[in-house]
């Protein structure tokens, strides 16, 4: 049995992993001592990733829905069905009637080919990622320039900071490698500041730990910004300081429930001329003020000379974005307006001019029956989008839905055709990790059952559309990508095979990130508790539950970690409700309800309920709302207010 080096598909860390194939299954996984990201270890996800690949519940054959039930079909039938379905819509509505969702889990080459397929053959720029519901929201205008920036060289530099400020993130669960490096920094004596409503790992070791009222992050940040601006001479800064006067002690203590003196401590330390790092994640950017929050963070970073990192993300979320799976951008953040001609020339095909719809807008259009068909690759949008009920309505409104996945997901249930795809152990390609390291994914076993790699499926579709595709070999596609994307110009399979991947140059290239003027408006918590819905609901990723559970629920070990979601409550609230750990409660929001067992957690803020995100049973997105960020028209989904009923 020989181990083949590949890249773990668990999260954005991009750990090196040896996969041992035997009898068409992955029999062992092992870490790699000298890999720069993983350094000899894997997390729980990595160690058990083979179970999902080996699962006997994988989609085995293409399925076509006939008279309301799925029937097995041959690949020829399925491809023919898909091509006819899309052609029908194209003829009647044009490309505007179709939306495509790419995947943060498939390879760069596949995402690129999907993007090309969508734009040229489906004649639409309506292409996006489900990552937009998460941190990746920021990747779009205007933050894109900043977002891919040099913030990402995390692996070892992270340990060398003197001050780490974490707000709305849980690094040990979201990206274990980053969590581990923070701990090493702590052992070195780094000062750690945390602002998060629920206790996170390493909380006991922090200098300041503030549990803020959910949704008040923007207030906390602006308050810190104000403290930093204090005494500055610059007129522009003075003006801003005066505006931020709003965020004074009384206001912020009322809004967020945190101690103002502690905030002062954080601000004082951030002013010091030492190495500083600010980490944030979905907790910060999941409400409708996400653009304001990030903007203020950037402002703090600029004033204090700190680095900023955003956490979270799936194995290839950065790669998917950089491959142009975005409505307004082609590869490498090149906007359609600027590079359309270059791409049309290289592809020998034309595509529409206008910027397409993002995933949020696609669902909107589907609800209005103006979007007719969708092609969803490797995403479980029913689980990952906020307001599940709304998503389901949108999908059932569609005339034609194609889902391509490795498991029968909640989204696939709505499909007209399901195409079984292969996992990352069954194909060649590349992933780009959080820090921008493009790494090889290698084929270890043959595609399981009758599944096919996504690239192969796209190829069949192109043929179905009457094209003779130039190539479906990942090497050649990477050549095409690197010739069209300046920052990927050094990426080739020869280079990738030499060491542990190639670092892509950063789009920022040393430029100062673009910061918007701080919007001068009074910002308050989005949905406030009232008599009817007195509790805040917060959600967060947990380590053993990734990729909207579609993958992890097929591993017996990961599934066992938490057989079902739990609603975490403060002891005080539990007493008031008269419930104990293990008792069931009904959680009701304005959008839906969920029944879950209670877990009493003294480390959670009173008046707050925590439900893990995207969970196998009890998905918190049933409750969350799809509020929209004013400026960016993006979903701020993470929290809402709820009512609890004892059962």
């Amino acid at each position, binding site marked *: *049995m*020989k*181990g083949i*080096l590949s890249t773990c598909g668990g999260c954005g860390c991009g750990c090196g992993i*040896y996969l041992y194939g035997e009898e068409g*299954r*992955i*029999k*062992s*996984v*092992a*870490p*790699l*001592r*000298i890999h720069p990201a993983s*350094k*000899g*270890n*894997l*997390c*729980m996800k*990595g*160690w*058990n990733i*083979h*179970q999902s690949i*080996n*699962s*006997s519940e994988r989609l085995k054959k293409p399925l076509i829905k006939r008279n309301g039930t799925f029937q097995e079909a041959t690949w020829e039938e399925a491809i023919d069905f898909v091509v006819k379905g899309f052609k029908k819509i194209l003829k009647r509505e044009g490309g505007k009637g179709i939306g495509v969702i790419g995947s943060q889990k498939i390879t760069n080459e596949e995402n690129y080919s999907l993007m090309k397929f969508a734009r040229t053959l489906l004649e639409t720029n309506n292409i996006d990622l489900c990552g937009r519901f998460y941190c990746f929201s920021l990747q779009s205008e205007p933050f894109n320039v900043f977002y891919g920036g040099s913030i990402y060289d995390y692996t070892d530099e992270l340990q060398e900071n003197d001050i780490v400020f974490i707000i709305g993130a849980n690094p*040990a669960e979201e990206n*274990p*490698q980053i*969590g*581990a*490096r923070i*701990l*090493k920094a702590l*052992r070195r004596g780094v000062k750690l500041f945390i602002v998060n409503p629920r206790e996170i*790992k*390493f*909380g*006991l*070791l922090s200098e300041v730990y503030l549990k803020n009222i959910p949704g008040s992050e923007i207030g906390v940040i602006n308050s810190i910004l104000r403290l930093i601006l204090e005494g500055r001479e610059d007129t522009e800064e003075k003006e801003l300081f005066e505006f931020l006067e709003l965020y004074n002690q009384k206001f912020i203590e009322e809004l967020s429930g945190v101690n103002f003196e502690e905030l002062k401590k954080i601000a004082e330390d951030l002013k010091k001329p030492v190495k500083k790092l600010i980490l944030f994640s979905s907790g910060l950017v999941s409400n409708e003020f996400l653009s304001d929050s990030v903007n203020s963070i950037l402002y703090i970073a600029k004033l204090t000379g700190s680095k900023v990192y955003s956490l979270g993300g799936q194995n290839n979320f950065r790669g998917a974005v950089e491959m142009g799976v975005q409505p307004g951008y082609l590869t490498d953040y090149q906007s359609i307006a600027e590079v359309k001609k270059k791409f049309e020339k290289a592809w020998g095909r034309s595509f529409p001019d206008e910027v397409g719809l993002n995933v949020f807008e696609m669902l909107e259009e589907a609800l209005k029956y103006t979007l007719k068909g969708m092609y969803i690759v490797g995403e479980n949008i029913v689980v990952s989008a906020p307001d599940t009920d709304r998503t389901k309505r949108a999908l059932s409104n569609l005339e034609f839905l194609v889902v391509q996945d490795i498991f029968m997901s909640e989204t696939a249930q709505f499909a007209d055709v399901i195409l079984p795809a292969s996992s990352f152990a069954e194909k060649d390609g590349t992933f780009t990790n959080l820090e921008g390291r493009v790494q090889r994914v290698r084929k270890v076993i043959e595609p399981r059952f009758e599944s096919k790699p996504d690239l192969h499926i796209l190829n069949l579709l192109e043929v179905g559309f009457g094209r003779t595709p130039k190539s479906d070999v990942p090497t050649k596609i990477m050549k095409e990508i690197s010739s069209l994307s300046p920052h990927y110009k050094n990426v080739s399979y020869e280079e990738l095979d030499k060491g542990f991947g190639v670092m892509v140059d950063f789009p920022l290239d040393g430029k100062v990130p673009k910061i918007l003027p701080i919007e001068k408006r009074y910002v308050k918590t989005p949905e406030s508790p009232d008599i009817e819905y007195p509790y805040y609901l917060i959600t967060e990723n947990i*380590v053993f539950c990734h990729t909207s559970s579609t993958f992890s629920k097929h591993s*017996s*070990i990961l599934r*066992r*970690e*938490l*057989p079902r979601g739990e609603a975490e409550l403060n002891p005080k609230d539990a007493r008031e409700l008269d419930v104990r*750990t*293990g008792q069931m409660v009904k959680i009701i929001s304005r959008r839906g309800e969920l029944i879950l*067992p209670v877990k009493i957690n003294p480390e959670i803020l009173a008046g707050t309920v925590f439900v893990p995100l995207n969970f196998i049973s009890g998905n918190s997105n049933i409750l969350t709302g799809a509020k929209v960020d004013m400026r960016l028209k993006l979903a701020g989904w993470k929290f809402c207010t709820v009512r609890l009923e004892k059962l």
Partner: protein
Amino acid sequence: MEVLHSKIGEVIKMDSKNKIILSKHELITALKNVMTKMDVVAPVKGSEGETHFQKIESTEEIFWKYTHDLYPSKNFFLKQEEDLFRFSVNGKIDLKEFPVSQRKIVIFGIRSCDVKGLEYSDLFFSNTYKDNYYLEKRKRSILVSMACVKPPFDTCFCICTNSGPFLESGFDLQIVDLGEQYLIDIGTKKGEDFLKAGKVKLVNAGEKELARVEELKKEADVYFETATYFAKAIVQVTGNKVKRELWEDFGEACISCGSCTHLCPMCTCFDVYDWMEDGNYGVRTRIWDSCHYAGYTREASGHNPRGESEERVKRRCYHKLSYQYMKINNNLHGCVGCGRCVIACPVSLDIPTIVKRIRREGLIKKEIEKV
């Protein structure tokens, strides 16, 4: 130990007659001869420069300047994922074992720490319940260990756990590299089988060679950098004298990744799960498990006696360091000092660090006063 080894491989009483001398060329010839009859697993150099133990087809594949494989050799006996049996569910339950190969398997060049790890696992799998899936493979195996004249990594600390760099028992054959030639310790009858299959001419080692081995043993000891004293930590852990704050500190650091347990040559925890091949046949599969996972100890009621990572770290340390476990395991340490946890742990919560910290800051206040 003797009792067990008579099943797995009869132990030969050690004296200088069991030590023979072999030239490097002769060893390769012997391996070639053995390969016609047995499967040989040996160190191979991976494309990344790492050592991997895997089945070889020719002796040319052997990576002679190998270090040790991060992936423990226990995988040859307790596989990370292993199908145990097939069952049918048509009316009545019908179990069928998978066919087992009868070919002997030689693990050539296995390091002392891994040998000791297997010795410990042997006890676990044959103590009360005999695990035939493991024991079958062990009985068919021949361990040809390579004494570490120089420890391969600066993370090695087998000198602290009495499990290397040279071994007194546990191996079938132990090779000592004397530079020009090899000295071979014959440990068991299985070792003799290997030599017979290799058609090796037995030349007893002379005084000079034996003296050189003793010299090398002494020299090897100097190289250890991670050395730490286990004895005092064992006393503290056994007597439950480690203060709570230290466990809390460990628990706060541990991210429950399971890397230390999966890579530990002595960790034997596993889980089983059933899956259906089709409507009629299912397979029971065994998979490595880890006591660091919360689900490992969760009871059916939902109660978890070790729900916090602090309790899980403590539990594992007890298993590795407490005398209660040494007592039932032939006084073997619960750790072999291979240093894999030192390499793997993302938060540096490895056994030498734990031992050091227990020794230095672990004592409950009352105890400190007594001291």
